[in-house]
């Protein structure tokens, strides 16, 4: 997957905070452990002899498959976070994300209905925040996670100011 990205070459992207990788990894570790624990239940029951009738291959496949998939997801996280970027242009905001499934989104300032700044407990511990832009279209899934708190505040103010200056109807 070293081929060219979809975004235009002449954009200088602002990347999100590297600390966000840690946040994502912690979240990933928790969910990975939980799913691994649940999907290993048949294997444990089989090995302890509680449920000997369970097909061994399926038990191993469930546990092993989960482990492989989760490790793979975990290995992807740093690259995924590094792939997130945004750029403020004169008329609009560009947001890019993804490695395998890339997405490049443009949200005109005049189209923004409101801007959300959300902080979860984990993000707060790392002084991070995510900014989400809402337009009249629910398909506009324009969120920038993992911004440093001050940058999130600056971006929110900047977006609101620009949105007001270029406000258009629906």
């Amino acid at each position, binding site marked *: 997957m070293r081929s060219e990205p979809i975004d235009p070459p002449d954009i200088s992207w602002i990347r999100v905070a590297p600390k966000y990788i840690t946040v994502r990894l912690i979240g990933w570790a928790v969910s990975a452990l939980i799913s691994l624990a649940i999907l290993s239940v048949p294997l444990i029951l089989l090995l302890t002899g509680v449920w000997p009738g369970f097909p061994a291959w399926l038990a191993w496949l469930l546990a092993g498959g989960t482990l492989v998939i989760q490790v793979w997801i975990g290995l992807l996280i740093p690259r995924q976070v590094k792939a997130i970027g945004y750029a403020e242009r004169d008329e609009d905001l560009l947001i890019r994300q993804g490695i395998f499934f890339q997405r490049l989104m443009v949200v005109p300032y005049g189209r923004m209905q409101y801007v959300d700044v959300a902080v979860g407990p984990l993000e707060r511990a790392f002084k991070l925040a995510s900014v989400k832009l809402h337009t009249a279209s629910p398909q506009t899934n324009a969120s920038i996670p993992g911004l440093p708190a001050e940058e999130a505040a600056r971006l929110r103010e900047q977006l609101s100011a620009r949105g007001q200056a270029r406000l258009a*109807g629906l």
Partner: protein
Amino acid sequence: MTTPEGNGPVSPSSEVPLTPDRAENWHRVHPVSPFVRGWIALAAMAYFFGRDWFEAMFRGEPLWILTEGRGIWAVVVLLVVVLLLVGAFVLSWWFTRYQVTEEHVRVNSGILFRQHRQARLDRVQAIDVIQPLLGRIFGLAELKFEVADAGESAVRLAYLPLASAQQLRATILARASGVELDPEHPDEAPEAPEHPIVQLAPQRVVGATVLSGATVALAVVVVVIGVAAAVGYVADWGGLPVLLSALVPGMIAVAAGYWSVFSTAYNFRAAVSPDGIRLRYGLLETRAQTVPPGRVQAVAVSQPLLWRTKDWYRIKINVAGYGVSAENSGARTTLLPVGTRDEVMQMLALVLPDPGTEDPFGVFTAGLVGQDNDGGFVTSPPRVRWLSFLTWRRNGFAVTETALLARSGRLVRNLAVIPHERTQSMALHQGPVARKLRVADLQLQTTVGPVSPVVYQMDIDVARRLFNEQSVRAAAARRHSVPERWLERRQETVQEQAGAENGKAEDEQR
């Protein structure tokens, strides 16, 4: 406001607020409304009690509640429940009042939990006048005032006498449009003159129903069942009754499909007036929808497989107030249930008064039935042939000065049109396979609705250029879009194109 609770004088409901209401003027809806609204509850009760009685009658047994002197109590309980129900509906009617001022429409409702709702008139996205079957018997209609909140009616007035509902609609539209009323009679807001565009003949409606997608589904079901039955017969398998009983839900779905096509296309008429597009339709429940100019966010023309034999098309629209409209199986978002190519062009001309091209007919025809580069369309590169072998010559886009056309589909043809000034945001998508082929999809995002325009599998360089150019075009178009009050001329527009605007405004008034 002197009476913040909205407890000022309430005028009789038949009196329609023709003049802008003062803050203390409130109105009630028609006194019969609680019964029209509550009849479903009463019908449900009648069904509940009636069924028992009916079954008992058929079995020839005496009904339990009517034996040993319970009958009198049953009647008493029934009466009390009915009275409570009627009382609740009457109370809710009594506590619901509305007013239409110069700028706003307000509705106060609720008995224990009061709700005060106010909507700005110039934010209107659409107005519906609906007559359910029972409302038609009483000559009553519901008025629905939609703002841009994706499907939740901002204001519903149920029910008003039909003539009053129509008069109120005209008044609201006149005030929302910013039209300058005759200064000598400021209270007279005449219904804007209409010009009929399309009227569907019953034969067309029946034909469209017969040739709709439900028939294709029916054919598939019949073939599957037939094959299964034949196999079952040969193999002497006893599961045939099970198979046939599985047919029932399928048949119900097919019948529902037929019904939805038929009932929404039945008696469909479209007209245009300075207040926008007006659609009327309905078999049992009739609706008259008004969509003011500049409120249509996106349009899609599609052609189900069998309609190809007749060259018929269906037009769907996104209007911010309509949402996805689960109600009426999407009828509200249908601009034209079934139309010939000429009718489609006429309706598109209403939605997109300025097509922004020298040869609109050619471009749109290419969008409807064409392939490859006819009409200036740009299509997917030939290298995606093995991925989408049916559609790669159809998938494509064309750009006019005012709109973007996204074409797709081979068996079910599809053309989405989105005016530049209505684009909310855009996204380029590319998955792993698409990256190997150096193509990407461009998704144009608009308000909630049945239309979601996507330009599929464009060469990555073309897609990137379109993405950039489209954001520039959208930004430019936003600055010149139709003002929210559509008959009020904007300051800058007046200066820029005074002559042209004057001619256009006069045209519309005629």
